[in-house]
C-alpha cells in the first residue's frame, strides 16, 4: 500500500490548474472533512445511531471526481458515502438531518448513514450490501446507452467489494455490451479489518480489468489533481462509445471502518505516513505557495465551512423525527397497497 502515493510525493511545483479549480477542490475537501468530524462528534453524543462510516482521508477522490464529471452523469456507491453525496450536491443540512434520522433528511430519515439518495443530483445511492451496487451501476449505464445519451455512470466500490462475484459478472457484461460505466475502486487498503494482501494473490486490483479487456490503471487518490486527470481521461474514453474503464484509486481512511472500530490492525506509522500527505494540507499549501489565495482568504473559507457545518447540526437538531406511520409509505408505489395487520 501507498507505493503510488509515495511516487507522487508532493513537490512545491508550479500549480497545473486554475486558481478557481484549486479553491473548489479545497472547499469541497474541507467541507467533507469538517462534516465528518462533526458527524463523529455527534455520534459520540448519541445524536447519530446505527452504523456510521466516515470518509476522512478519502476526500480528494470526491473533489477531483466531481470536477471531471457533469451533473447529468450518474453516481452509485457503497455505504461510506457521506462525502460522495455532498460532492454530488446533497446539502450539509440534508445530510446531517439524515444522520440524525430526521424528517428533513435527504431521504426523510429512512436511510441513515448508509443510504443517501438524490434523484435531482443523479445520485443513485449509498448501498449497504458490499459489491451489490456494481451490477446496479452497470444497469444505470445500460439505461443511459439505451436512451442514447452521452452520460456515464460512475460505479464506486471499496477494495473489499472487489472480491465479490458481482464485480466479475458486471465487468463482463459491461465490457461485452460496451456500457458507459466508469468503475472506481476506492482502495483504502482495508476491507473492514482485513488488508488487501491478506485476501488476494493479486494486490494490484486494477489488473482485474485485464481479464475482461477493460482498460484500467492505478491512480494516486491523495491528490485531487491526479484523480481529476485520471477521470477526465477515462470519461473521454467512455463517452467515445468504447465502453467501460476501471480506475483503482489508492487512498486511505484515517479512521476505523466504522465508529466502533479502533483500527488495531494497522500501525501508527502507516497512518502518520498518510497524514503527512493529507490532501487538504497539501492543497492548502499549494494554494498558498502558488499565491492563489492569502492566509486571510483561507481563514475565510475555513470560517465559512465551519459555519455551514454548525448550521447543519442546528438544522438537524431542530428538525422533527418522521411520524412512525410513515412506515407504510414508499414500500410500494401503489398507494392503496393492502398491508397485512
Amino acid at each position, binding site marked *: 500500500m501507498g507505493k503510488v502515493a509515495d511516487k507522487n510525493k508532493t513537490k512545491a511545483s508550479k500549480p497545473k490548474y486554475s486558481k478557481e479549480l484549486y479553491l473548489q477542490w479545497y472547499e469541497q475537501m474541507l467541507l467533507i472533512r469538517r462534516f465528518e468530524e462533526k458527524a463523529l462528534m455527534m455520534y459520540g453524543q448519541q445524536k447519530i445511531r446505527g452504523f456510521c462510516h466516515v470518509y476522512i482521508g478519502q476526500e480528494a477522490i470526491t473533489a477531483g471526481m466531481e470536477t471531471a464529471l457533469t451533473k447529468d452523469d*450518474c453516481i*452509485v456507491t457503497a455505504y461510506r458515502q457521506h462525502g460522495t453525496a455532498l460532492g454530488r450536491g446533497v446539502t450539509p443540512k440534508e445530510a446531517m438531518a439524515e444522520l440524525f434520522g430526521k424528517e428533513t433528511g*435527504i*431521504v*426523510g430519515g*429512512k*436511510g441513515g448513514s448508509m*443510504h443517501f*439518495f*438524490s*434523484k435531482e443530483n443523479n445520485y*443513485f*445511492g449509498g*448501498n*449497504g*450490501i458490499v459489491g*451489490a451496487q*456494481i*451490477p*446496479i*451501476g*452497470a*444497469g*444505470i*449505464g*445500460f*439505461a*443511459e446507452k*439505451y*436512451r442514447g445519451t452521452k452520460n456515464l*455512470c460512475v460505479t464506486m466500490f471499496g477494495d473489499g467489494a472487489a472480491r465479490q*462475484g*458481482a464485480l*466479475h*459478472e*458486471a465487468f*463482463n*457484461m459491461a465490457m*461485452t455490451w460496451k456500457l458507459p460505466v466508469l468503475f472506481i475502486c476506492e482502495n483504502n487498503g482495508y476491507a473492514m479489518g482485513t488488508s488487501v494482501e491478506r485476501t488476494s494473490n493479486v494486490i494490484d486490483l486494477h489488473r482485474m480489468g485485464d481479464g475482461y479487456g477493460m482498460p484500467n490503471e492505478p491512480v494516486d487518490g491523495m491528490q485531487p489533481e491526479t484523480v481529476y486527470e485520471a477521470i477526465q481521461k477515462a470519461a473521454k474514453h467512455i463517452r467515445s462509445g468504447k465502453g467501460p474503464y476501471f480506475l483503482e484509486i489508492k487512498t486511505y481512511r484515517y479512521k476505523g471502518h466504522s465508529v466502533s472500530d479502533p483500527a488495531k490492525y494497522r500501525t501508527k506509522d502507516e497512518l502518520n505516513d498518510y497524514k503527512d500527505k493529507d490532501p487538504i494540507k497539501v492543497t492548502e499549501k499549494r494554494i498558498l505557495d502558488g499565491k492563489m489565495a492569502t492566509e486571510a482568504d483561507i481563514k475565510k473559507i475555513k470560517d465559512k465551512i465551519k459555519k455551514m457545518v454548525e448550521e447543519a447540526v442546528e438544522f438537524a437538531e431542530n428538525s422533527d423525527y418522521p411520524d412512525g406511520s410513515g412506515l407504510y*409509505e*414508499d*414500500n*410500494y*408505489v*401503489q398507494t392503496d*397497497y*393492502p*398491508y397485512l395487520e
Partner: protein
Amino acid sequence: MAREIALRDALREGMSEEMRRDEDVFLMGEEVAQYNGAYKVSKGMLDEFGEKRVIDTPIAELGFAGIGVGAAMNGLRPIIEFMTWNFAVLAFDQIINNAAKTLSQSNGQFKCPIVFRGPSGSAGQLAQQHSQTFESWMANCPGLKVISIVDPYDAKGLIKSAIRDDDPICFMESEMLYGHMGEVPEEEYLVPIGKARVRREGTDVTLVTYNKMVLVAEEAAKKLEAEGISAEVIDLRTIRPMDHETIINSVKKTNRIIVIDESWPFAGVSAEVAYIVQKHAFDYLDAPVIRINAADTNLPYAPTFVEEYLPNPDKVIKAVKEVMYVNR
C-alpha cells in the same frame, strides 16, 4: 374472438404487446434472443424487436438481475427472465436487498419497475435443485409483488399488468405447463394484480390453490362432483398482495377450506391462507383448515419419490372427506 393458445404463447403475446406499446420495456435473460427462449416463451421476439431490446446474457443471474435493477432505477422497465426460479436464488441479493428496498431507502425518489419472471415448481424427475417453488420466499418480503399463474388468459393479462406496474414483481410460471392450452381473446385486456379467480363455483368445500396445483384441484373437484360433493376452486393468481376477500367470502359459503400448495408447508402460502381464514372466518368454519403441500423434504429423482412428494387429486379428495366428516 377467443382462440385456444398455450401458456408460452400467451406470455409472449403479453410481453410483445407491451414492448410495442412502450419503448422502455426490454427483455433480458439467458437464451431469450437467438435461441428463442429455453422454453420458447420469447420465440420470434428478437426478430421483431432487435438485439437492443431482446438481450442474451451470460450465465450470471446476480449480475443481470442487478443490471435490471439499475436500469429500472434509471427509468427503463426491464423484464428479467430466469431460466427457472431455482437459478434466481443466485440473484436474490438484487431482488430482496435492492429491487424491494430501493423505493423505501430513497424515500420514494427511485422506483424500481421491473418484472423478474420464469418457471417455479417441480417439472418431472429433475431432482432436488431443479424442483423448488419460490412463491413463499418472495412473498415474505415487503416491497415485492408476487404473481403465479398457469392459465393462459390470466398469464397474458397479468404479465401485461405486471409490466405496467411501477413496483417490482416476481412472476412465476410453470415449466411443465408452458404447453397448457386455454382460451385467450384476440382483443387487448388486462387482469388486475391482487385479485383471485373463482374457477369453479361450489357449495360444500373451498379449494384454494395456485400455479399448476390448479389442475390438481380442478381434477379433484370433478371427481368429487361425481360423488355428489360440490367444491369451489379458487386460483389465487396473485400471491402478494393476497385477495383475502374472495377466500373469506367463499369460506362463509362453504364453511370448509383446503389449501393445495406445491410449496413446502413451513411458513408458506398455505400457512398464510390458514391464518387469514381463522382470523376472519373463525365462526364460519365447520372443520379445521387442512393444507396439502409438497412433502417437507427435498425432492429426489426416482418417479416413486415424485409421486410421494407432490399433492395429487387423491390426496385432495381424502382431505375433503376429512373436513366433511364423510367416509365414502
